């Protein structure tokens, strides 16, 4: 920008020339952000979130402790009862835990967004000529790191206690990528809740209401055939069940099954509904 150089010549002393010209500024002002501007603005907002994560490492507690603890706990508590022994329960359990931790991580996306929005800096983001979606999508892009840690650590913990994925490294990688995608998609639901809720605590409350049925009323921890009729019906349509089945096919057998397609479709549908809703609500309420 030409105006920058004008004041650069004498740092500390304000340039007393007329460096601001309204007519030029009006002529230069464009009516919309372009797609590439939107993408780069989202990435800068992600940069901001990553900086904040690095300065507040306690934010990583949930994505590190939960996979480690839950994997070991569930394996040793339910392993014998459900599959006869721990080792044969692991192929069933690990993809389930991956889905569960990724979903829990989604919830904190909404809670943290709400906390963030209450700070003064969001007023500036609103006043800046940037895409309205950037302040919402930026933190979500940064959260990809958290999903990666959560999913990766779960598999690692599984391998440590004896899980040997039949799909090999490629299968496991596929399952991780699918889990990250689904997590990112479902995070839009919690982002939407973040934009409509009164405060961070109510985001947490509302989110729990969705989260518990989604994770526990799925095939994540127990085989569907052991469930009573009505429950089994819900579990079969639950998108989390599709993610879990797809992950099992990928990690345990190295197979890209139809479940992968259903999972992707469900994820895209969630984004298509909740991303516009979130932006709309962000524009209106805050």
């Amino acid at each position, binding site marked *: *920008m030409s*105006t*920058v150089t004008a*004041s*650069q010549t004498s*740092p*500390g002393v*304000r*340039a*007393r*020339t*007329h*460096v*601001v*010209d*309204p007519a030029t*500024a*009006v002529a*230069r*002002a*464009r*009516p*919309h*952000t372009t797609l590439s*501007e939107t993408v*780069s*603005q989202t990435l*800068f*907002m992600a*940069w*901001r979130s990553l*900086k*904040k994560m690095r*300065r*507040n490492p306690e934010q990583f507690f949930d994505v590190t402790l939960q996979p480690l603890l839950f994997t070991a706990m569930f394996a040793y508590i339910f392993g014998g009862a459900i599959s006869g022994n721990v080792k044969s329960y692991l192929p069933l359990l690990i993809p389930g835990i991956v889905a569960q931790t990724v979903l829990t991580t989604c919830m904190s996306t909404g809670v943290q967004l709400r906390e963030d929005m209450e*700070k*003064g*800096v*969001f*007023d*500036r*983001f*609103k*006043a*800046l*000529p*940037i895409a309205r979606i*950037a302040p919402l999508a930026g933190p979500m892009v940064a959260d990809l790191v958290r999903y990666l840690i959560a999913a990766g650590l779960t598999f690692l913990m599984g391998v440590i206690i004896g899980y040997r994925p039949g799909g090999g490294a490629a299968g496991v990688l596929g399952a991780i990528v699918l889990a990250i995608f689904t997590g990112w998609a479902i995070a839009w639901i919690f982002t939407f809740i973040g934009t409509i809720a009164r405060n961070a605590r109510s985001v947490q409350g509302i989110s729990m209401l969705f989260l518990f049925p989604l994770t526990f009323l799925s095939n994540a921890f127990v085989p569907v055939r052991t469930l009573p009729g009505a429950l089994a019906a819900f579990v079969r349509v639950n998108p989390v069940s599709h993610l879990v089945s797809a992950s099992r096919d990928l990690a345990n057998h190295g197979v890209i099954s139809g479940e992968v397609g259903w999972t992707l479709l469900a994820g895209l549908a969630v984004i298509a509904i909740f991303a516009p809703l979130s932006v709309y609500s962000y524009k*209106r309420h805050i």
Partner: protein
Amino acid sequence: MTTASVSATGLVKAFGEVRAVDSVDLEVQQGEIFGVLGPNGAGKTTMLRMLATLLPIDAGQARVFGVDVAREPHRVRQLVGVTGQYASVDEDLTATENLWLFGRLQGLRSADARATATDLLAQFGLEEAANKPLSQFSGGMRRRLDLAASLISRPPLIFLDEPTTGLDPRTRGQMWDTIRGLVADGCTIMLTTQYLDEADQLADRIAVIDHGRKVAQGTPDELKTSVGSSTLQLQLADGADHDLARQVVWRVVGRAPVLTPESGRMNVPLETADVAGDVLIGLRQAGVTIVSVSVAKPTLDEVFLALTGHDTGDAAQSDESSPDEPLVEAR
């Protein structure tokens, strides 16, 4: 040829039953400092937020350099800088990181964003604190950083919401200098304030807002004339000759003082504060003894009383942070 920086007609914002801003018309010329004066809750901030696209406009129309605020908010955002009452900077980032991020978000290249950040931090005397966490910043430093953040894209119009509320007198003076500097650079400033003194010092024109309505508009001089000027408050000694005192005052200022005989208090309206000396000399020559003297400037309360017939109803006006204090106090 020059379009008004801000031109608003019939601006309305309603929160439920309450009309926070009620049919306000405004016209801010290019290159002027336009002050919006009013007590807390008068609707100043709401008005500013509407003009800055931060709040939807319920009725009426607003244009910024001819661009419709409601219809083309994205273009308006490229023309205005906003500095709110509460610092809108990121607490978890350093000052440099904040400015760099805001620069990048507005399309500056990385090197340019860094140069602009360095430059602005120097201009605002923050270079030493550039890489410190914001938690170590004082209120004044935050306010300066916030203003710096509004200037990155060099917007031709800057909204300042109570830019000096809560600042000490020295920092307030610095902020005033900065604001004058911006105007010298070609910016238009629209600022809100609760302080008549501040509006007086800075603004070319002032709109007085009360209960969401514009109750007066004019230059600071025009407004002050409507209120009267300074008042000399005297406490006469016991047994002083009140009639004699009254005669002296009449001879010197050509106006009758307001006397409260029971307490021996006498208020003398003054054209200018320096006539106070003449009154005191006159009283001394006549042998009238005085216990205490003070000269008070008209306060925002008095402006309001004169303009609206009711006071501001705002306790903050009378506390020690208000600049509308007596100029001289001798005892």
